[in-house]
């Protein structure tokens, strides 16, 4: 049972990590916590579902079109909502993300209705791999693989590409970045686009693991946020580690201590981390110079 709990925990933790990553990308650049992240992912997943269900295109094509939609959705939100805010404070921007979240939730309910759907994913959700006596379902296995690959690509992107470095520069000092010729407004839009893509990937995986419906991201988003806090809201590797740890802790807690309190472990962790190491496990403590 122990091994099985770890494997299941890793699979769900990978999804938390992806969502946390999407939030952290935004947070690193603008210090805004995007509470619309879950619903942006949910709407993108519904778009993927519509493409697959209505047009019967191959999954990879549908996923690509969905990522394109996610890019447009991220840029649209940044330009039409956030950029228009007058004298924006971080708190004000966070409230705008909350408003956008409600708009998207209402839109999804109106457009696709409240019924649950099964998301057509090319990997079976019941077939399993037997790895050394440990059963791991194909969908769990591929969820972990896809998440790790995506995180690795993002890590390389931020570390080695000019655009990634420009994004980091904009986060560290927007004024200096502008002086150095970086178009910070475009960088911000691009950040929202990338975050939206990562969220869409998480949404499709979460829908494939469970069911697709408008409230499907409520719980994962909160857990993703907890993963970010645990790993460090400014550290990309931290979110991956945070997601994995959270998924495993939750499962072990539910398996050996109490199922009823399983879902509150994430929030206990948030409180604990904020008390002991507010910057998270892998992020450096941020000291504001005065």
């Amino acid at each position: 049972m122990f091994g099985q709990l770890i494997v299941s925990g890793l699979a769900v933790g990978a999804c938390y990590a992806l969502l946390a990553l999407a939030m952290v990308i935004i947070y690193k650049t603008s210090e805004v916590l995007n509470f619309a992240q879950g619903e942006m992912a949910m709407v993108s997943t519904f778009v993927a579902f519509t493409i697959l269900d209505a047009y019967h295109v191959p999954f990879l094509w549908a996923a690509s079109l969905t990522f394109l939609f996610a890019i447009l959705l991220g840029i649209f939100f940044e330009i039409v909502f956030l950029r228009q805010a007058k004298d924006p404070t971080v708190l004000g921007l966070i409230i705008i993300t909350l408003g956008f979240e409600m708009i998207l939730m209402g839109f999804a309910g109106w457009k696709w209705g409240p019924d649950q759907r099964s998301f057509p994913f090319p990997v079976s959700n019941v077939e399993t791999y037997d790895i050394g006596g440990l059963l791991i379902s194909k969908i769990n296995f591929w969820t972990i693989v896809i998440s790790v690959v995506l995180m690795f690509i993002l890590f390389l992107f931020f570390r080695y590409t000019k655009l990634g470095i420009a994004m980091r520069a904009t986060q560290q000092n927007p004024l200096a970045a502008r002086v150095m010729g970086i178009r910070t407004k475009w960088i911000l839009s691009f950040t929202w686009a990338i975050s939206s893509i990562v969220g869409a990937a998480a949404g499709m995986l979460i829908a494939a693991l469970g069911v697709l419906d408008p409230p499907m991201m409520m719980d994962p988003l909160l857990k993703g946020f907890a993963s970010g806090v645990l790993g460090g809201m400014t550290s990309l590797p931290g979110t991956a580690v945070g997601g994995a740890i959270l998924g495993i802790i939750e499962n072990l807690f539910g398996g050996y201590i109490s199922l009823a309190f399983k879902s509150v472990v994430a929030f206990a962790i948030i409180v604990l981390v904020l008390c002991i190491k507010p910057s998270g496990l892998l992020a450096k403590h941020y000291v504001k110079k005065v």
Partner: protein
Amino acid sequence: MIKRVSVFLCVAILSTFLLSTQSSAQKVRGVTDTEILIGQWGPQTGPAAPWGAVARGTDLLVKIINEEGGIHGRKFKYFLRDDSYQPAKTKAIAKEFVEQIGVFAVVGGVGVACGMTARDYLMENKVPWCGPVTGVYEWITPIQKYLFAIYPLYDDEAFNLTGYLHEKLGYKKIAMFYQNDDYGKQGVMGVERYLLKKKISLVAKVSAEVTDRDLSTHALKLKNSGAEAVIMWTMPTHAALILAETAKIGFKPQWATSNTLSDSALMMQITKGLWAGMINSFFGELPDSNHPLMVKYREWHKKLAPQERWGVFYYAGIIFAEPFFEGVRRAGRNLTPETWISAMETLKNWQGIGPPISYSKPNHPMDRQGGKHVFYGKVKPDGNIQRLTDWMQITK
């Protein structure tokens, strides 16, 4: 002269007062010469949204009755409100129904916790309430004059379902997967009551919170219990998730569930076919039934609500409303809460497309429990139902 004018004025004022008092007394909330206002809440959004189809099904019956000319010269105006399965919203909706809209009655209403926040308020305001869409004891104990329950009691339903699994199908190791609230707990109550009677222990009792989305640990606990059969008392989302999680780890017991999950077309779709083999109890005719009323409703559905899927959750909204309209018919043109209640108490084994309904003057809680029957069916691989039994009385 002044004296005469004073007397005249006094008489005029008194007459006006008396007439206006009489007029107010005659006025019944939510009933006019041409209309009767009724309301229902139901989750149109949120995790329990598939059950929201119930409230839309009632809307279809209202439209059908209006199309047929109404009842005793009055047509119905139906107010549907989304409470997202959140009790706080339900209470606000109940207040809106009474204080702003002024409905004559509430029909249906999904959710135990949701309904419980509204029950006392509706009863204090003497609002007739027909058919809460749950089967818990709270609707009939303490006895409420204005509340008529329809849904068969979960406790009795679970008791009999466990008996069916044990006695007819021979399962001895039975586990329970349930939603951690009154809905799930009254299912557990019935299962444990039966097993206690047979001196058998439940091999596992695993609960899920409404917001849970990761049920992998729950699935492992069920598998490790070694259960041969698992009874589930959850909402559709959790049912789909637990079937997927147990399938992933190769755990394939005989599943059985309440009529709350009897929309097999929806369940087959969201479980990607894992719903096949499920033993379900049913409290209404099957979707493709040839019952004359079902044929009639299906035809109207095509005309009036073609955008809706004709499934059990949808036409359950008709099942919960039919007895209310029968009560209005029997009450006659002089419709008041009292005449409606008296009319409802004349229903004896009255049947629409749901279970036989009977009520009596409220001397015992069961006098307000209308539905006492279910039947069992097994979901075939194509999603259709193989009927296993006829209607059975589960509440004695």
